[in-house]
């Protein structure tokens, strides 16, 4: 493979995961903080809050996972490496 393409692919893979982790990180932090606040305010709703929180955390995590998929494609199934 062309070394330029290899270097660019590795860099792009790192950026895809790294940048992709920022947004969901902030979002998950927000969600978790709000959930803790909710539980502190209303401890009897803990079960419901936990369920909803886990579900929404998984949704946010999926955003990073999209970046990871792109990174994995670049590393293991690079379409430009002919």
């Amino acid at each position: 493979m062309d070394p330029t393409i290899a270097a660019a692919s590795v860099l792009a893979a790192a950026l895809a995961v790294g940048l992709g982790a920022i947004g969901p990180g902030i979002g998950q932090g927000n969600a978790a903080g709000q959930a803790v606040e909710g539980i502190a305010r209303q401890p009897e709703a803990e079960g419901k809050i936990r369920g909803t929180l886990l579900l929404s955390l998984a949704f946010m995590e999926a955003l990073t996972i999209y970046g990871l998929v792109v990174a994995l494609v670049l590393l293991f199934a690079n379409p430009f490496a002919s």
Partner: protein
Amino acid sequence: MQNSVAMFDLFSSIPFAPLAELEVGQHFYWHIGNFKVHGQVFLASWVVLGLLIVTCILATRNIQRVPSGLQNFMEYALEFIRDLTKTQVGEKEYRAWVPLIGTLFLFIFMSNWGGALIPWKLVELPSGELAAPTNDINTTVALALITSVAYFYAGLSRKGLGYFADYAQPTPIMVPFKIIEDFTKPLSLSFRLFGNILADELVVAVLVFLVPLFVPIPLMILGLFTSAIQALIFATLAASYIGEAMEDHHGEHHD
């Protein structure tokens, strides 16, 4: 594929970590007609299907009025799936969709957990390796397309061609977005599941490669947790897409 092969060599050239071989992008090909299919996915999903079928047969072979043991467990699972479908699709029409949502949930759940819990590495394949069927993009795309077909069928059978009139429902500006959504729904469903499962296996494999003993165990447990959640999310989303397609926009508002 040159760089990936180099990476496999790196992982497998260390004699102390024979378990840490990463084989992303290598498959055990079967040739059926003009198609090349990933045989390892077929084998693994047959094992998963077999497990599910055998469990169901065992649980329903001798049905008691007061359930115990396996029957009790399966009734609990059924109730869980029914509740999930009921909350997403709605009280009235949920019954017909329980089999589809249940199949999706159980297959994905058993695939994810089977990939982590069944010692696949004991079986040697000529190339590629056995793992969770859901860590192959083809499986997840197939499941997502089934979901797409299901919600189109739900909407069309409920409202006829009026289903497409709902695309312009709040304002006609929504039409292109709704059309794009029809494509992004299966895309995000399949990528989410595929990425999560593959990421779990990669994280565990990399950690096993770094520290072969004990250290990966917490991450394996986390992986089991996320894979269960992913199965739940896939089923929930499929049910909510179906519910959304059948929702009445013209009638009275209801919660």
